[in-house]
């Protein structure tokens, strides 16, 4: 297996899927000349040409609609929204059209669109370039929501998202693009809606997504030294949620911490906690605990933003509370 960055894994997924199916195209601001903000489509304009790699103006609403219309016509658009904070401009198309039109067509049209974006803190970008909006999409029937945490996962999940006939909101994390990991040479897919146990353990289950998985793994490593064995479960897809894997883990450990970068209120972390309560009630040794960002905008700069979002220390503290 080769070791590649998260960004390179995305590029591999694009290259494979665009070669396999010429109807797959990427559209967004600076996806061509720049090769995307974090270079995940670097070089692909030269390789695939402007029909498959389309630089577009700063027009998120138009690009969202462009995805809807072209998908109905048999194309497979990947609409890149540079920052999830900008997806607000495209919300009408995603929520009112992409998510609704298959049902409204009585099953006659397909909307194979990937709305691909990146969110989260970690790059000192303050309150309008650092947010975590995944919870909004989880609450919209008709959408699939994916949040990968590793190069291996992002490649396999992105390929599946491109091939899936449902609209998929695919949320990467800006702090992950330069993380490295092993990716097989041979082609592979990861099914949507299937969680992954990132670390096996016996005392506490930590359910975490995206960037938080990295912190959870670091915390688990340190906690191991003090004799606490953590199992880290990454749902990878927030809807549909792989309840079975989460429940199986908590039924084994009896304790559960859900970690999310978004504020916990009204969010997916509550859904995960409810799944545990419904499926593992008799086995729980402690109430389910949740850890999310402070209910605040993300403050500016390297110090404060790290204090607002969860990190390995706050995860360790939360696990230790569960063990008391």
């Amino acid at each position: 297996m080769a070791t590649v960055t998260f960004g390179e894994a995305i590029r591999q997924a694009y290259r494979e899927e665009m070669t396999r199916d010429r109807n797959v195209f990427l559209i967004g601001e600076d996806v061509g000349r720049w090769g995307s903000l974090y270079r995940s489509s670097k070089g692909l304009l030269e390789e695939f040409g402007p029909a498959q790699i389309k630089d577009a103006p700063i027009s998120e609403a138009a690009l969202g609609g462009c995805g809807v219309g072209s998908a109905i016509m048999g194309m497979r658009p990947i609409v890149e929204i540079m920052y999830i904070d900008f997806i607000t401009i495209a919300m009408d198309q995603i929520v009112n059209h992409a998510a609704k039109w298959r049902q409204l067509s009585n099953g006659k049209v397909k909307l194979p669109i990937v709305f691909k974006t990146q969110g989260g803190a970690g790059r000192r970008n303050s309150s309008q370039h650092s947010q975590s909006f995944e919870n909004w999409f989880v609450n919209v029937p008709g959408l699939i929501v994916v949040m990968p945490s590793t190069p291996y996962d992002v490649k396999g999940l992105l390929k599946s998202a491109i091939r899936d006939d449902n609209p998929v909101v695919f949320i990467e994390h800006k702090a992950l693009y330069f993380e490295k990991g092993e990716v097989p040479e041979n082609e592979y897919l990861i099914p949507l809606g299937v969680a992954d146990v990132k670390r096996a353990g016996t005392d506490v289950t930590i359910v975490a997504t995206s960037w938080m998985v990295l912190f959870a793994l670091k915390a688990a490593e340190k906690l191991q030294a003090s004799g606490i064995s953590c199992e880290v479960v990454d749902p990878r897809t927030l809807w549909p949620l792989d309840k079975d894997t989460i429940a199986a883990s908590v039924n084994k450990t009896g304790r559960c911490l859900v970690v999310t970068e978004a504020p916990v209120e009204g969010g997916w972390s509550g859904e995960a906690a409810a799944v545990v309560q419904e499926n593992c009630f008799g086995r729980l040794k402690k109430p389910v605990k949740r850890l999310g960002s402070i209910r605040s905008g993300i403050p500016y700069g390297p110090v404060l933003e790290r204090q607002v979002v969860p990190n390995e220390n706050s995860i360790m503290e939360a696990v230790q509370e569960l063990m008391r």
Partner: protein
Amino acid sequence: MNGNLLEKLYGDMLLLRRFDELCLALKLKDLIYSGYHPYEGQEAVAVGFCGLLKQDDVVLSTHRPHCHAVAKGCSLESVLTEMMGRQTGCSGGLGGGMQYLDPGNNFFCGSIVGSNLPIATGFGLAIKQQQMDRVCVCLFGDGASNTGAFHEALNLAAIWKLPILFVCENNQYAEAMPAKEFVACERISMRARGYGLEEISIDGNDVEETRRIATALVERIRKGEGPFLVEALTYRIRGHYVGDPEATYRTREEVESWRPKDPLKRAREKLLQQGCAETALDGADHAIQERLKTLQEWALKQEFPTLEQSIDHVYIPLTREMR
């Protein structure tokens, strides 16, 4: 334009007028449940533009879609029973009066004002990229021309030279907001200049003009000269919805002043001048009314969708198998 074509266009408009009246009556009987937006007075736009197109051309309509749909070629049965929420509706009765899809006839509409313009760019892009001989006609109102989506879509369509005909059906009111007060420019077509497009305003109540302009522009779009934005000036004779508080935004006199400009009245007068027999026109009207009576009787017998049917297509089931 020869008399036969005008007679056909008049007949098409008459069908829409009577259909609109039928829908209104059903709305008043609470057999159409959702918001229902009457089309009376605007028929020359639907017939002129939508009625020109081939089946594989695309129409994107609005929250006031029923006459656009019929003019595009959707069956009266599928449109009426959609509004009545029956299984035989083009969206299986799940959409109602403001949002439905008839993919077989390439007709799409939705109830978020301005949102169809961005979608038109997607259809246009696919048509262009796949080099198909199809056009996309996107209809919207004066209100939609004030949305951000209007600007984004016009700009995108213009820079990529997409095969789209944007038709602003300026009926002079966005709900209760008069265009003369809420649109900053004198004519909405003036906005076309900002996208490097021609400024085209037409009399939207003259069916010969709407058809003539539609024909010319669609032909030019098929030759790769698109997109175009055309403003069809018309007037919403009825309220935004049935029973809206009309007195809060316009006078009776204003409405009455538009009646002489009614597109059916004008077409009929011209036909009579040209020697068309009144009895022939009345006969056509009678035939339409008989047809709609039968349609209504049939529609009332259609089944409602079950819950299972209505939620069957929210998702295409995921599979764990690799495809």
